[in-house]
């Protein structure tokens, strides 16, 4: 028997409660996060079955998808949203689940607050009824999105049933060039793999480029794993990870910490472990990226031209339908295209480093008149850091306003909707038709590209605005 294992195998195998022959594994879940949109029917389910939540202390609730990003102190105006928020609060109270609702000091996007308070830990299994749960893989956790039936399973039994995914490793060495951020690395990978290239796999990101990244950068990369179809993505924990996790509210302390560390230090892929698929890219070739179509795989280096239908894999009809929706043509250059909206935020790019990056470009410049900008911190903690670090002053001087935390225009369930036909540069994760509002057109990009667009009013290469470091 071979003892060599991948990081993924180590964490997965140690959480299998039961193997079903010719069926899925029963997987124990260490941390479960819930939000207002995908949980009410699950709570209703256990209510109808008349069973309790098995481990309320392992479930954490926050309100984020539906919440307004201005005037959060006022009652929520939309009655349907208000109802979902009320249901979450009632359910959390009834079942004894920790609840960080609207207005709570720890409120924020579920995938932003999880790491902030140490709910997210290496080697854990983490699920949430939201596909970008993959974010938490940055800590060497197995984290993935689940459907509402599975939310009900976790509430009822602290387990879900999942067939074990295959293993893929994506190796990228080299350094990130000027103007390139973790978001660009992720968009680059997706553009190479397409949106279904990793379906059926769980991805491990390895190599210098990820080792060099901050924890927040790793979160951005893992967050986007789902956009290439992967069940999730993860990065082996290292000193940076332990340093980040240490002393947060929900992380182990004292002797428990030592015990946890003893486990966490075993979390790496053994040298000769085998992956079902391995891909390698040269990181130094990655440019600032931008998408031009209606899925995150339709991305390219910002200075390139939109590919011709004949040159892309897959159906030309679908490709042309997509360009038609975007009102772009094959061969168009993206640079210089006038834009209407900029959205900085989401669980992909709504953390403090993203606001620092945005501010580094807009500093000393003015917001373009033709641009409406929504700057939405991922959590109250991020919001506080923006103020403490003086970033808010920079933003205000440049003509920007800061909104209150939430998912906001990432999925446009609240009032932050991009109007039909308008073009938005967005740091979120999906550019699907209508994702940011019916008829909206989305260009996915990094906070630097978003900032460059916000001050010039058009698609602009951020490298042109970056001060040369001597």
């Amino acid at each position: 028997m071979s003892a060599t294992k991948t990081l993924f195998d180590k964490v997965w195998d140690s959480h299998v409660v039961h193997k079903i022959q010719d069926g899925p594994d029963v997987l124990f879940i260490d941390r479960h996060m819930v939000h207002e949109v995908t949980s009410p029917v699950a709570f209703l389910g256990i209510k109808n079955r008349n069973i309790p939540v098995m481990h309320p202390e392992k479930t954490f609730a926050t309100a984020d998808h539906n919440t307004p990003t201005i005037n959060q102190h006022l009652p929520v105006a939309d009655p349907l949203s208000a109802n979902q928020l009320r249901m979450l609060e009632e359910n959390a109270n009834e079942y004894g689940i920790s609840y960080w609702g609207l207005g709570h000091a720890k409120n924020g996007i579920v995938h932003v607050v999880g790491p902030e308070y140490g709910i997210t830990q290496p080697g854990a299994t983490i699920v949430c009824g939201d596909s970008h749960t993959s974010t938490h893989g940055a800590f060497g956790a197995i984290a993935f999105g689940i459907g509402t039936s599975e939310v009900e399973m976790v509430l009822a039994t602290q387990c879900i049933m999942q067939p074990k995914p295959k293993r893929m490793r994506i190796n990228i060495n080299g350094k990130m060039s000027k103007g390139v951020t973790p978001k660009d690395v992720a968009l680059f990978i997706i553009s190479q793999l397409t949106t279904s290239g990793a379906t059926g796999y769980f991805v491990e990101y390895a190599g210098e480029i990820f080792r060099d990244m901050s924890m927040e950068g790793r979160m951005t990369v893992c967050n986007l794993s789902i956009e290439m179809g992967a069940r999730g993505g993860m990065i082996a924990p290292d000193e940076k990870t332990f340093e980040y996790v240490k002393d947060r509210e929900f992380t182990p302390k004292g002797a428990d910490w030592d015990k946890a560390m003893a486990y966490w230090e075993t979390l790496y892929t053994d040298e000769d472990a085998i992956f079902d698929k391995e891909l390698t890219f040269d990181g130094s070739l990655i440019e600032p990226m931008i998408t031009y179509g209606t899925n995150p795989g339709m991305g390219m280096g910002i200075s390139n031209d939109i590919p011709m239908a004949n040159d892309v894999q897959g159906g030309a009809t679908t490709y042309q339908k997509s360009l038609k929706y975007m009102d772009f043509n094959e061969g168009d250059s993206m640079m210089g295209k006038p834009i209407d909206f900029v959205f900085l935020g989401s669980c992909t790019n709504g953390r403090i480093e993203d606001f620092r990056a945005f501010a580094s470009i807009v500093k000393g410049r003015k917001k373009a008149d033709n641009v409406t900008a929504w700057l939405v911190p991922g959590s109250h903690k991020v919001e506080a850091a923006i103020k403490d670090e003086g970033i808010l002053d920079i933003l205000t001087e440049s003509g920007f306003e800061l909104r209150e935390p939430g998912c906001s225009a990432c999925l446009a369930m609240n009032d932050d909707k991009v109007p039909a036909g308008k073009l938005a540069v967005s740091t979120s994760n999906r550019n699907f038709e209508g994702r940011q509002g019916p008829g909206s057109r989305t260009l996915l990009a990094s906070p630097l590209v978003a900032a460059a667009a916000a001050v010039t009013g058009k698609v602009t290469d951020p490298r042109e605005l970056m001060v040369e470091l001597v």
Partner: protein
Amino acid sequence: MAYDKFDILTSTAVPLPIENVDTDQIIPARFLKATERVGFGDNLFRDWRYNQDNTLKEDFVLNQDKFSGKILVGGKNFGSGSSREHAAWAVYDYGFRCVVSSFFADIFRGNCLNIGVLPVQVSAEFLQKIFDATEADPTTELEVNLKEQKITLLSTGESESFDINGYKKNNMLNGFDDIDYLLNIKKDIETFAESTPL
């Protein structure tokens, strides 16, 4: 929740020959505000089905009288995007019991199985045959036989087998649900929980 048993389904099909149909198309986020599992079918493919003034888009397949049935046939990479089970609920609530494609996104596939909609993955060639046949003659019927794991184009008799794991197959044939299974092994889970480090 428990759902209807699935055995043999014979039905006409609704063709949607578009690739990468994502969950935001299947049901846009703004329609996810319900707290009960009812009424999602009305908003299935909302923005492809309706104009902004809520009038019907005549050329969309669900709005063409000639197409109907319990089987939805979609292009490659069907259901990509979010984990919202509402997408599967919308498909079910509209009246579909089976979705056929040459490739499914993982979470969507799992969600379908969990609520009693059968995802049937066929080869790209067979998918094209189904598209061609149903578009040429919308009364063309498909037979989906779960027990035999076989899908047949009844007009020509051509068929293909499809995969499903034994556990899920048994669940669907009998209308069983996972929570009942898990509750049955609750003791094992409790023992396991005591030994977890985190």
